[in-house]
């Protein structure tokens, strides 16, 4: 479904973000994109969403090469934008409509879908947003904004959902809700996170980006979790001192530190 071949990306200031990355994603896969902060996870998601384009290498979606030029083609643009959606790390970036209702209806209206009202009603009920439909999105809490963004994206009935650190700004209850939702979704998902403790809940296959921006692991998460050296090298594991009633010791941790 999606194929990345020998992809290298650098920002204009010559800051390398991805180096010679290759992988393939099949329909229905649940991928966890792991890596420490600044290793290129967000950049990779933006490339997969056709927002920025690599300096070298290829990105193919359903055998169509995705470039700035090809995405200008009306047919491919429409198909791609309705098939591959991205939940940004900062929900505020995605919200601009006057009400929650309009926010969820934005995509279906653009696609000219039938029964927009019913779709909005269904998705808002699914996400517990029915009482907020007349509210301005910017007045909502962080968790509610995240839900509105997700409902807005899923109302398009996409095939691929990309999520950039989706739990970074959520409270524990909303994090639990999101994990359940992602497990129930049947579409292809790619979730970027540096939170190892949540990774197992978000997917089975892991892509690991190193701090030198290379893909250093592609395989089952269970194998990766047993590879302490690799996790240490990727800066996903840390150790620090503990004190328990006068006793001091050090051991490794995989818990989140954000």
């Amino acid at each position, binding site marked *: 479904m999606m194929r990345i071949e020998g992809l290298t990306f650098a920002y204009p200031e010559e800051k390398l973000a991805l180096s010679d990355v290759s992988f393939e994603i099949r329909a229905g896969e649940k991928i966890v994109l792991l890596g420490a902060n600044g290793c290129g996870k967000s950049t990779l998601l933006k490339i997969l969403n056709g927002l920025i384009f690599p300096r070298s290498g290829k990105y193919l979606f359903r055998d169509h090469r995705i470039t700035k030029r090809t995405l200008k083609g009306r047919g491919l*643009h*429409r198909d791609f934008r309705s098939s591959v*959606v*991205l939940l940004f790390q900062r929900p505020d*970036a995605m919200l601009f409509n*006057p009400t929650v209702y309009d926010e969820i209806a934005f995509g279906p209206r*653009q696609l000219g879908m039938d029964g927009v009202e019913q779709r909005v009603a269904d998705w808002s009920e699914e996400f517990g947003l029915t009482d907020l439909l007349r509210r301005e999105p910017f007045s909502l809490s962080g968790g509610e904004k995240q839900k509105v963004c997700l409902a807005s994206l899923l109302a398009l009935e996409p095939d691929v959902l990309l999520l950039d650190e989706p739990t970074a700004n959520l409270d524990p209850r909303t994090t639990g809700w999101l994990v359940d939702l992602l497990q129930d979704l049947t579409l292809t998902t790619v979730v970027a996170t540096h939170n190892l403790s949540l990774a197992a809940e978000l997917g089975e296959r892991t892509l690991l980006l190193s701090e030198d921006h290379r893909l250093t692991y592609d395989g089952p998460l269970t194998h990766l979790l047993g590879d302490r050296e690799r996790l240490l090298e990727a800066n996903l594991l840390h150790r620090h001192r503990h004190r328990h009633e006068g006793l001091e010791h050090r051991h490794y941790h995989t818990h989140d530190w954000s």
Partner: protein
Amino acid sequence: MRDRVWLAVYLVAVISATMVHDLRILAAFLLVAAIVGGRETLAIARRAGQAVLFFHAVVAISYTALGLFQGNFSASFLALLTLRVFLLAFLTFLLQRRINLFRALAFSQTLAYVLTLAYSQAMTFRRLLGEFRMALRSRSVRRPRIADLYRHGAATATFLLGKALHDSVEITQAMASRGFFSDSREPGGPVDDAD
């Protein structure tokens, strides 16, 4: 030292450009600036043109309309205004490419602080703006309508303004916490926060 000299030349040039009212002298200024720009002249001119185009177009159209309506339109005044605005923008972008502003202002600790704060804020806001634009592009199955663009612009501006206000309070408090303001009666001293 070199950066400081360039900064001084820039300041003199900017002040001179605002005091000269002769179109030919201003044109000569621009010619000199273009020669100093060397190979980068075209790129700088394009950047300066983009920077002033919208705002100056609004001013020029309003002036032209009002001038024609009142019967006192002056083409030479409009040309002078246009040239001056473009020259000031050109000089600024030329300076930006020629010097390291941090080195140029290193002689003053206060100016260096102000520049660091302003620069870090500008970088943050540039990144945010890029993110907001990408989010709209990502969500747009077809070209957004003009109403969508207006709404998006308004939402972005509202968010950035709120963030700027919030950050200014946070930064002031952080600086106060680190002992930056020795006298709390000075402007920018510890902030009373109702929250």
